[in-house]
């Protein structure tokens, strides 16, 4: 039951082959047994899950509900959940019980899903390996000595290990796609503004976007459809109708114009990864897509640009964590300054502090023009590069990450090496474009099969196309159906 996709589970629930309660109990059992070794969850909401499941079964018995009624899910612990602890994997919020539901939580709940728990992540979503969590690192189900990617590493590990059929994630510089690639999942980051950010604890507001990690493109279509859409509580959410992503999955590959991003096949790309990506592109060509190379010359500047913009926004966004109204407060502060310094000093981890300091620096008087303003200009150039490419092709394609999953601790001592892991994913965030990562094969390292991700980026609001291309590719291949050994 646990290795079924959401679409298959939904069919099973409707046909009453199993109840939501049975399914939920089964998954809670797996979580209890298997989650600790992966450290995938921060909070398991068993009681809430059972309540949700019973309610879903009542509706299903009456023939009510939608396609997601009774389907268990997990939320990244960055989404506020009413009455449930929401930590953002930070000591700062280790005692924070959100008094409201994020829009994403509200919508999935309204769709009838069952909340299994809140997944581990990099602290405040800052990290590419899920090693910055206050609750400890998450391990990759494909090799527990390796990282699952980050920052949505807990969601990725939980779904990859079949502890949950789907989980939400957020993607600021690759935080959905990179872990999806490293754990053999389908992970979509929608167009900026497609999914409401209300209730999603902000890291970098102009880049953050909610999305989903699943085991198939079809599942991503189902869950994104239930998550997306205009929200008057988020001024940056876009008031445009949400297409029927599932109905459009059938769009054939024939006639698809694919642009292979020249800059992504650079010297940093591991040859084994590049080979699999090329094979995937060949498969698309064989199914009727036309393939050409496109060049996005400003794209190599995306990492430095990102590491100005994102810290700048984060330095301001995280100012509200001051020990005054909620979150961690230091013991017996002497005065106001002491309250601020110790509460924040104790509450935040090193990576968060590093980014707050970087961001504070780039916004400072005398440096603003040289860093923040310059970065915003480069951001425009990167967006213009993509726009030019989309004048010629429907989607651009390349690897999601330069390497498969790396070992725990392998990159923690050098932030720059860690940052370079997002070199292929950051561009889509800077340009606000939708992007998806799908499994495209495995490389073998030290006797372990490690998944590799293929990334597709499309024009604004082309989620339908990204999902249909991915779905069609998944009709040709079965990489996405493979489950890590020990979690079958």
């Amino acid at each position: 039951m646990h290795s079924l996709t959401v679409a298959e589970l939904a069919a099973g629930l409707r046909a009453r082959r199993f109840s939501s309660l049975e399914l939920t109990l089964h998954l809670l059992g797996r979580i209890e047994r298997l989650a600790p070794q992966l450290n995938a969850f921060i909070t398991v909401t068993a009681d809430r899950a059972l309540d949700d499941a019973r309610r879903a079964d009542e509706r299903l018995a009456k023939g009510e509900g939608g396609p997601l009624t009774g389907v268990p899910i997990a939320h990244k612990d960055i989404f506020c959940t009413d009455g449930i602890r929401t930590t953002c994997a930070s000591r700062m919020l280790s005692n924070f019980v959100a008094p409201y539901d994020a829009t994403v939580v509200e919508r999935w709940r309204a769709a009838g899903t069952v909340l299994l728990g809140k997944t581990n992540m990099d602290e405040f979503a800052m990290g590419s390996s899920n090693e910055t969590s206050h609750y400890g690192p998450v391990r990759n189900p494909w090799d527990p000595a390796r990282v699952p990617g980050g920052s949505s590493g807990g969601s990725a590990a939980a779904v990859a290990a079949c502890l949950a059929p789907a989980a939400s994630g957020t993607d600021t510089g690759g935080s959905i796609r990179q872990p999806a690639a490293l754990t053999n999942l389908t992970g979509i980051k929608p167009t900026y503004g497609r999914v409401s950010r209300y209730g999603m604890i902000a890291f970098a507001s102009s880049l953050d976007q909610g999305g989903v990690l699943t085991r198939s493109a079809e599942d991503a279509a189902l869950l994104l459809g239930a998550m997306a859409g205009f929200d008057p509580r988020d001024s940056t959410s876009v008031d445009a109708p949400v297409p029927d992503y599932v109905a459009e999955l059938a769009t054939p590959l024939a006639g698809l114009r694919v642009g292979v991003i020249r800059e992504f096949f650079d010297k940093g790309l591991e040859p084994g990864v590049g080979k699999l990506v090329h094979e995937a592109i060949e498969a698309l060509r064989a199914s009727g897509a036309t393939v050409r190379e496109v060049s996005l010359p400003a794209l190599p500047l995306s990492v430095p640009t990102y590491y100005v913009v994102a810290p700048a926004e984060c330095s301001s966004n995280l100012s509200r964590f001051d020990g005054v109204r909620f979150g961690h407060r230091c013991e017996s502060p002497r005065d106001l300054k002491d309250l601020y310094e110790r509460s924040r000093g104790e509450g935040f981890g090193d990576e968060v502090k590093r980014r707050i300091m970087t961001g504070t620096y780039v916004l400072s008087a005398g440096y603003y023009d040289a860093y923040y303003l310059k970065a915003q200009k480069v951001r425009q150039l990167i967006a213009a590069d993509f726009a030019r490419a989309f004048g010629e092709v429907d989607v651009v394609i390349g690897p999601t990450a330069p390497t498969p999953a790396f070992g725990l601790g392998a990159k923690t001592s050098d932030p720059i090496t860690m940052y370079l892991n997002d070199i292929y994913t950051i561009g889509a965030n800077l340009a606000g474009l939708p992007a998806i990562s799908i499994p495209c094969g495995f490389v073998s390292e030290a006797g372990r099969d490690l998944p590799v991700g293929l990334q597709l980026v499309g024009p604004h609001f082309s989620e339908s196309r990204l999902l249909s291309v991915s779905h069609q590719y998944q009709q040709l291949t079965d990489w996405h159906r493979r489950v890590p050994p020990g979690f079958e």
Partner: protein
Amino acid sequence: MEWETVIGLEIHAQLATRSKIFSGSATAYGAAPNTQANLVDLGYPGVLPVLNGEAVKMAVRFGLATGAKIARRSVFARKNYFYPDLPKGYQISQYERPVVEDGSLEILLEDGTRKIVGITRAHLEEDAGKSLHEDFHGLSGIDLNRAGTPLLEIVSEPDLRSAKEAVAYMKKIHTLVRYLEICDGNMQEGSFRCDANVSVRPKGQEELGTRAEIKNLNSFRFVERAINYEVERQIELIEGGGKVVQETRLYDPDRGETRSMRSKEEANDYRYFPDPDLLPLAIGEELIEAVRATLPELPDEKAARFGRDHGLSAYDAGVLTSSRELAGYYESVVKGLGGQAKLAANWVMGELSGALNKDGLDVTASRVSAAALAGLLARIADDTISGKIAKEVFEAMWSEGRSANEIIEAKGLKQITDTSAIERAIDEVMAKNPQQLTDYRAGKDKLFGFFVGQVMKATQGKANPAQLNELLKRKLGG
């Protein structure tokens, strides 16, 4: 050396929206602490600001009323600093691209001259909460009811040359925002307050002197006193061989002085940058024209009309248009009276304003309605009573609430216009005062007033003054 004072004002006008600028909480004043602060105002994790369109319309109203440019695209920025009553750790304001730019306002000075004062910009921003330091025994309480209240910060050019000019400008803005119904102007509640940038320079020097910014002045009197104190302080400092340092100062109304709050070096680096949670504010022609269509007659237009159509002096017109309500009252009196604008103006500025002030009432709460006052003035106009008797009638109207006619009737105050009755009274007075009569006729003209007073006394003030004058002159002349 002769010194010139240079002043620029930053006025904070709290916009009269029902809800806050970025949240749905109410803005009403005086609620129990933290009862008008929702998750957005509290800066909770995950919440986002949503701009209140009413606040934008109000800013546009102000811009149109001051002939300013309305930015078709303006940007909200974050002003970052830590303070417990600033929940997010930043204030959302407008920095590089304000919604209103390049306006101006004409002020009328006491000596009758007019002066144009430039308005550099007006921008939208949110207010912070309040820190309460009493009652908490070494701790501070935070009340976030005010956090997120919409403000329009109106920044003048450094065009003002004295404390008096600064006050005249501030009063004019105060009048304007109330006309526009975008601010209640309540200074006690902090709805209208200002910071003053003050510097001095040797007369004739082009270059501006170093300025000090005096924070949070919440009365016209404090503005005047604080500026005068500060100007003197700066001149004394320079003449004593010292230098003015750029700093923020605080006015202490109890001691009547300003004192240093923080120097430029200690000033925060606010790290302004565009707020990524809010899209740039786009304002289209349609909105501007819709707002323009709802603009009331502005104080200057009204004053000009009062001068043109009513023959009022610039000063009178200025006083009567100082509030929309007062002007409305005055116009109702004129209408009820069917003309006689000067009479109406004198009464509204004189007796009525005096009575309102004495009882601390606003004109909208006047005990004598405009129609009732017109009824009284009509009796002066038709010679039923004299102006002097009218004041007595007015007092009775104010305290008893009855109409002028009722009071005149009940108290028998009707003016005597019967020539023979007045003549009789004159004769009696002349008979009783032979010595004064002799003196008057011998050339002591001043005694004319004595006879007027005596006759008035004899008639309980009811003799028609014009008739009395004429008859008395004739009779005294022999």
